[in-house]
């Protein structure tokens, strides 16, 4: 019993190790322990795999096109192979998230390596793919080993600001609410940082400020690269099994509200909800409106408008 209890210390260290977050003294202790401990090796492996699952599920922007060129230059490859069909890339993003241990165990055996005859890699791209690459031109395809001085400035954010950005970015993307404010003595400071960063993000991407019938501000509609989101700041939480919120765009020309998408508000805290996009673009949209809808079905017209705001020109 005390052995189990004693080991919980190593369980903690194993997770910290997998997170690459141990202090040097803890690391020393753990490395010594790890070699003889199957349980800890398993914990490390499981933690890494859980983290990989999270990483693979988060939004992944396309890296700059020059990156692959840089890599090929770095390995000194004589010539770049033809690019892979983009659809293959898309597909892999979906598939890599599937959970299937036995398949891995099977294929991971050394024996699996011997099936070299089965080199079935599809080389689907042809001249069209090459042309697309070349169109990028020399300006983007070069690696000069130096980035503009301004780039590294980002590293000079204060620690707390970096933390706030990360929490909010992750929070925003995954639909989390902006962190817990009750657990730390530094709560005001941390919350204030979050607020500042979030406000900055909102200010740069705000499309409309939403107000309710009393003229009270209840949130903002933001546009992040064509995707509209709602930053709720006072909309009451809806019951997620019996109702939903919907975001609508109204253009001066038609006057008819068009559905952007539905979203939920889980509580009154600040949080970004990604809703959707307006296929025809935002050019003619004059008003954004939020309605509360009974049921979970996609509404065709707003039932009860609870907030609205004019679109900034």
């Amino acid at each position, binding site marked *: 019993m005390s052995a189990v209890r004693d080991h919980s210390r190593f369980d903690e260290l194993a997770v910290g190790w997998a997170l690459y977050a141990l202090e040097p003294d803890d690391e020393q202790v753990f490395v010594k322990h790890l070699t003889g401990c199957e349980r800890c090796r398993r914990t490390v492996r499981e933690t890494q795999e859980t983290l990989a699952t999270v990483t693979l599920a988060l939004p992944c922007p396309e890296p700059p096109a020059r*990156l692959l060129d840089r890599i*090929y230059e770095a390995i000194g490859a004589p010539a770049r192979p033809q690019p892979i069909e983009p659809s293959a890339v898309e597909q892999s*993003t979906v598939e890599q998230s599937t959970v299937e241990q036995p398949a891995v165990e099977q294929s991971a055996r050394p024996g699996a390596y011997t099936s070299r005859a089965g080199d079935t890699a599809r080389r689907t791209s042809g001249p069209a793919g090459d042309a697309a690459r070349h169109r990028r031109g020399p300006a983007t395809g070069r690696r000069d080993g130096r980035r503009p001085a301004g780039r590294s400035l980002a590293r000079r954010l204060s620690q707390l600001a970096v933390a706030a950005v990360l929490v909010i970015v992750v929070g925003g993307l995954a639909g989390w609410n902006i962190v817990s404010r009750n657990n730390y003595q530094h709560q005001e400071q941390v919350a204030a940082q979050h607020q500042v960063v979030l406000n900055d993000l909102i200010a740069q991407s705000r499309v409309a400020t939403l107000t309710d019938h009393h003229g009270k501000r209840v949130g903002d509609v933001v546009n992040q690269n064509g995707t509209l989101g709602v930053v709720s700041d006072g909309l009451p939480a809806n019951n997620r099994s019996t109702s939903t919120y919907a975001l609508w765009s109204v253009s001066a020309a038609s006057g008819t509200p068009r559905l952007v998408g539905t979203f939920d508000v889980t509580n009154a805290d600040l949080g970004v909800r990604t809703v959707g996009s307006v296929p025809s673009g935002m050019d003619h949209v004059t008003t954004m409106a939020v309605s509360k809808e009974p049921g979970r079905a996609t509404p065709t017209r707003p039932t009860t408008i609870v907030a609205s705001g004019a679109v900034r020109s």
Partner: protein
Amino acid sequence: MAVARQKATHGDVTDAHLVQRLVEGDHRALDEVYARYARPAFALARRITVDDGFAEDVVQEVFLALWRDADRYDAAKGGFASWLLSMVHHRSVDAVRREESMRRRRDKAAEESAAEFALTPEVAAVDNQVLSRLQGERVRGALQTLPAPQREALTLAYFGGYTQREVASLTDTPLGTVKTRMLTGMRRLRERLQSDAFDPAGDPS
């Protein structure tokens, strides 16, 4: 136990097979690994370093290391994706920690412009395609079930590159509590992902 064990096949070529081809020096295998994993690798590096330039450097280093030492991947120790991403994570965190010591010598003006740079909307760019996917929903749901302090401790360590002691100091929490939060949070996350894995719809609500 099956949590996060990445399925090793994409179409009909397994990761293990690609690794073997890398060991043999097949450039096309590198191209394929890139097609599969450059996006998440770059996204992770960028999230940690908050800097496109550093993120590119990290991904380049990792692919170079992969090309030179693909046989260092040991399938017995876990899936290829988690191995590759943990390399990306380590190097990104190393970059952040290296820069952190430089940071103190910099002047305030630089910090301010840095803040401006870091707050461009691209930072919060949303990839709806991925978000809407099953796995995104599943992971989001699992993360949401974590108590905020656990989620924050894990986030600060993994995406922020902070050590346990730094997390303790940032959140003004005893070090022991932070360690426990990370362990408990990780266990819970894993259990949740695991239980969800059997729900074909993967829809929490």
